[in-house]
């Protein structure tokens, strides 16, 4: 195949766009499409300080790379979750720190073990709440805390089109109306989250992100989180990729069509009263907040 722009040998075929592109024109395409998403959904401006949540995986490292290429002000934020199996957290942290050093980027690393006295492994051993649920609470809490501390305007995550379409499919199959009301490339700041959460790669297919990372030599962790086996998100992504293979462009049409039609999911809802957590002061539905309850349970287990 030849590049549609210049006729040189193509390195990637993008069936959803009916395009084959050489390296140079694929990189230009990827960067320009990311920029379009940022502008289309008004994710942030050049005046904003963007806290990029960096896991060490291909999406977050590539996002951080592209945002800096586009001239945005960024600060990286990495949470060491203390997942020891396969040295997953160790390797993730190493890749993130090496990347920051290589490109001269500022990075804050928070170890959950040091910050709160427990790790995801500890909670998994305790039983009860799943590792994924615990991880979600921890990440949300710490991002909220550090976006405040760093004075960042927003938190950017590397969620891509496959992630968004997969989540959308799951929410529709299970009729999770409250999630459907909220899903969007930009979640504005609210009473319980101090800054907007944005997803500049929300319209970029996972394969495009991987190709960009590969071509630019971005060194990321390939291993999956050991706790992610059997996750339903992977099932939904697989189903969508089967459809995409036969009907290119399905994922993007699905996601964009949803965003255009979102108002059908909006319901009248009561305002939930938020209170201050008696332990940490963060806004919460009930005090103490989920994060402080995790800390308390872990501490009780250690003292037992």
């Amino acid at each position, binding site marked *: *195949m030849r590049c549609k722009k210049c006729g040189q040998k*193509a*390195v*990637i*075929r993008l*069936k959803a766009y009916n395009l*084959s592109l050489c*390296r140079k024109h694929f990189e230009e395409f990827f960067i320009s499409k990311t920029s379009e998403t940022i502008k289309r959904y008004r994710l942030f401006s050049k005046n904003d300080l963007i806290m990029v949540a960096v896991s060490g*995986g*291909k*999406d977050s490292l590539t996002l951080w790379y592209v945002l800096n290429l586009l001239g945005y002000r960024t600060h990286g934020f990495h949470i060491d979750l203390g997942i020891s199996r396969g040295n997953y957290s160790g390797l993730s942290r190493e890749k993130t720190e090496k990347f920051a050093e290589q490109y001269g980027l500022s990075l804050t690393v928070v170890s959950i073990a040091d910050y709160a006295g427990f790790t995801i492994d500890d909670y998994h051993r305790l039983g009860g709440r799943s590792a*994924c649920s615990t991880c979600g609470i921890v990440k949300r809490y710490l991002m909220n805390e550090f976006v405040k501390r760093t004075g960042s305007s927003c938190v950017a995550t590397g969620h891509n089109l*496959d*992630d968004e379409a*997969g989540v959308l499919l799951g929410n529709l199959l299970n009729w999770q109306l409250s999630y459907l009301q909220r899903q969007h490339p930009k979640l504005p700041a609210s009473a319980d989250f101090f800054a907007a959460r944005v997803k500049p790669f929300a319209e970029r*297919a*996972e*394969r495009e*992100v*991987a*190709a960009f990372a*590969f*071509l630019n030599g971005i060194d990321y962790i*390939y291993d*999956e*989180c050991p*706790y*992610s*086996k059997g*996750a339903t*998100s*992977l099932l939904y*992504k*697989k189903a969508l*990729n*089967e459809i*995409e*293979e036969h009907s290119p462009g399905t994922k993007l049409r699905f996601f964009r069509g949803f965003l255009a039609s979102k108002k059908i999911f909006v319901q009248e809802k009561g305002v939930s009263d938020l209170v201050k957590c008696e332990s940490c002061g963060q806004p919460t539905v009930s005090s103490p907040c989920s994060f402080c309850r995790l800390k308390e349970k872990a501490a009780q287990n250690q003292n037992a």
Partner: protein
Amino acid sequence: MGAVPVEVKVIYRDKEWNLKNATTVKDVLKKLNINTQTVLITVEGELVTEDHQLKDGDVVTLIDVVSGG
């Protein structure tokens, strides 16, 4: 003249094996029943498209792109 089927080495998910009677990368994906949306394809370390003509002894590496959980 049509392409000549060749034998290549395939590397995927830390496993290696030899595959015979492949002419293009698309043949490799078809024989392994792999969805093109889920992998990047490299031949001798270079990113290629599905129609890439293979040579005898080429090393084809498939890189998973799907992450999650």
